[in-house]
């Protein structure tokens, strides 16, 4: 039995040359969508706990840490009829993972204040619409509060982050924003805050369920389906600020490592650099968009002010036709103000929030890279310890202490197991990360493209509206004389 609960299946170690610390780059991890089993090169041992997972029908019970069913069987090497029947299970899972048959839409709506004073909270309605067989019905909703979302994220992070899965970060906490709402301030800024949060919660859930592994997690399913959810406590654990602190701690730990990791796997080195660069660029873009949103809001305020002054001018004007035209001018400007506000919202909700989401996601990505380092370090530490024990054992051979010798031999045996496990863990996390990164990159492109199209559509629409307004005003202006 494995002592390390969170480890993946005990797969036979791959033959790796001594100076590399990861599988060779070219051989195993082409993410070729045609060949579903391209990654599969190892056989599943029939003793592995994974077997239970593979054999069960539905999602595993909540208490068992989930070992993700990565495709581990190769059709070429397998002749066992039992294993062959498992293909169909995997095939089904892979198809669903393929993305074409992902059919699920989650909406977060109807924010409702529950309670009074500082104990008050916002309850949101979470509605799921889906045709996937994973669920009992194809439309259902539940009521959730913000801490429930944080609780969900906390659980997912503790289960999946350290084995290399990019768990989408939960939305930010905000003491100021929430206090205003609790205190009952029904003004524009607190309404904006609630809307911003609602949108963020929706995006968070969609990202989470789009992940083929996370979707099947029992905590996720419970979150979406259960009418009652145990109250999440200590949700400080893994907000994105918490995540960032964790990553920084891990980074510090890495720097303190006595043996520097010999990153001869160029893929990981390149990807890490790539994400560093991407982080910097996205932050710049984010700052740029925030500035744009700020100016647009300012324009809306100024346009409204101008509209008011134009109306006053129209009222004071003697000349009838001119007075009328000026009043119309005021109305046109008011309408244009509304357009400015809509545009500011588009800028914000489409770009600013997207960029913010991705900056936070990249923090999670950096986190899994750091976990890989830690896993490697753990393996190396075990190896060093084993070596020391062997040296100690060799010395004991020449002494007359049979008990101590036996103890040493036992310890060595245990350590050998640990070293093997460490190596397997390292390979597994490396493999998982490769897959995750590939998925992440594809999602990133899809996300950005979709947002850009939405944005362009809003631009086109704004212009059409503008044309209508000017067209209507022109005859009024011409009629003055």
């Amino acid at each position, binding site marked *: 039995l494995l002592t390390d609960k969170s480890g993946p299946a005990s797969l036979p170690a791959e033959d790796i040359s001594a100076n590399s610390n990861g599988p060779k780059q070219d051989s195993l991890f082409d993410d070729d969508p045609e060949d579903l089993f391209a990654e599969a090169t190892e056989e599943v041992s029939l003793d592995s706990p994974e077997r239970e997972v593979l054999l069960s029908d539905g999602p595993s019970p909540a208490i068992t840490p989930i070992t993700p069913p990565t495709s581990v069987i190769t059709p070429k090497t397998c002749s066992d009829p039992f294993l062959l029947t498992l293909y169909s299970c995997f095939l089904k899972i892979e198809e669903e993972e393929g993305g074409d048959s992902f059919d699920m839409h989650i909406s977060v709506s109807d924010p409702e204040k529950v309670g009074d004073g500082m104990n008050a909270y916002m309850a949101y309605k979470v509605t799921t619409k889906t045709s996937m067989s994973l669920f009992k019905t194809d439309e259902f909703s539940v009521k959730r509060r913000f801490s429930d979302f944080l609780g969900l994220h906390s659980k997912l992070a503790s289960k999946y982050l350290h084995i290399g899965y990019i768990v989408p970060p939960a939305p930010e906490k905000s003491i100021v924003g929430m206090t205003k709402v609790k205190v009952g301030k029904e003004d524009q800024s607190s309404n904006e805050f609630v809307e911003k949060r609602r949108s963020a919660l929706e995006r968070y859930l969609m990202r989470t369920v789009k992940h083929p592994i996370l979707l099947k997690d029992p905590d996720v399913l419970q979150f979406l389906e259960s009418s009652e959810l145990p109250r999440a406590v200590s949700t400080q654990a893994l907000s994105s600020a918490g995540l960032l602190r964790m990553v920084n701690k891990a980074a510090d730990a890495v720097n303190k490592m006595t043996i520097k990791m010999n990153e001869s796997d160029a893929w990981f080195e390149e990807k890490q650099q790539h994400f560093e660069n991407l982080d910097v660029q996205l932050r710049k873009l984010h700052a740029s968009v925030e500035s744009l949103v700020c100016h647009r809001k*300012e324009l809306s305020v100024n346009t409204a*002010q101008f509209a008011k002054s134009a109306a006053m001018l129209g009222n004071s004007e003697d000349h009838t036709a001119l007075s009328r035209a000026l009043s119309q001018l005021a109305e046109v400007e008011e309408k244009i103000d509304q357009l400015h506000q809509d545009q500011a919202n588009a800028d914000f909700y489409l770009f600013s929030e997207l960029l913010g989401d991705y900056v936070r996601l990249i923090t999670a990505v950096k986190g899994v890279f750091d976990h890989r380092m830690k896993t490697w370090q753990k393996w190396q530490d075990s190896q060093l310890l084993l070596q020391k024990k062997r040296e100690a054992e060799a010395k004991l051979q020449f002494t007359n202490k049979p008990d101590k010798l036996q103890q040493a031999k036992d310890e060595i045996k245990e350590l050998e197991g640990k070293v093997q496990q460490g190596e397997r863990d390292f390979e597994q996390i490396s493999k998982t990360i490769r897959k995750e990164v590939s998925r992440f990159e594809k999602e990133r*492109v899809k996300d950005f493209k979709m947002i850009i199209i939405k944005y362009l559509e809003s631009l086109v629409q704004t*212009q059409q509206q503008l044309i209508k307004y000017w067209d209507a005003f*022109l005859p009024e202006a011409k009629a003055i004389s």
Partner: protein
Amino acid sequence: MMEEVKEVTPTLSVHADNIKVTEVLKEGDTLTFIIVSQKLSGTGEYHVDRTYDDFEWLQQHLFSQEDVPGIQGVIFPPLPAKAQVNASAKVMKQLGFLGLEEWQPYCKALENFLQQIAAHSILCKNKALEIFLTSSDPPGRQRVRKNIFNRLSQAVVEMRKESHKDVDEFFQTERDHNLVLTGCTKTATERFLDVVLTEQKIAVACGHFSAALQLCVEQGEDPDKQAFSKACVKLSEVFNSMMKNMTSVAENNVNTLGVGLDLESRYQEAEKEMLFRRTCKLVELETARRNAEKAKPVKKAAMEEVKKAAETEFDHICGVAKQEIAQFHGLRVKMLQQALVQWCEKQLLTAKEKADQFDQHLQAFRGMA
């Protein structure tokens, strides 16, 4: 060097409506304006270069025409404030719209100033205008003696006269109305300027975002990287379009409604000045009447003379003022209409162009898959 004023009734030798300020040259700290006007007889043109001081010279000459009866009843075409290269923030604020777009609106304002003078039945007769437009030498930079029209020199105590009750309902109404309109127009002009300045900020922000997107282009053959890079390049183009759009919208705002409101605002102030001068004359007249009444027999005749002179002058002023007001009402409606129509037409054109462009971007993007 000023030329001798001839005794012949002066007439302007150029077309009034064709006076153009065609260029502005920057020489150190000075701005020099090139003014072109068309000869009435024949097909020739006058090209002259003038600085702001020359414009002030002209204005001072117009103000100091004391021999013209009722001259104080004239609504003098307003001269914009002085513009400078590297103007201070205070100067720029004072100039408002006229300080934007590389001095083009400012040139238009100067042009308008000259055209209005040339079209004015009384003012066009002043020789100073002819010299200003046709003399190859600058008209002379010496300051003409201070005149009564310079409000800055008026004592604070004179300001109280502004609210002095009128004897004529027509004028009282006009004064009240002018007071309201001046305030409203000033506010509207300032607020519209705020709109334009924010539009310019947005244009700059769009430009920054466009440039930042260019930096996100990643090298490599990785299909995801290439797809992302392509998307960034395309989006960069979109924001570049948006920047140009905002710039056009701001430009349109400045060149049509902006300068229109600015001109209206300055003209309202000019009318206010005229009405104030008349009110001051009214106060003078009432004082003269009281003095004549109360005068001791010794002084009575002299006081009566003064009173008669004041009455005559006041009548002349009222006569001119009534004409001017009627003309002004017609003029300002025409100017505002022109501004509003041009503004709407330009914005409509820009909006249509941009709608097409954005649509093209959208189609191109969808096709990128």
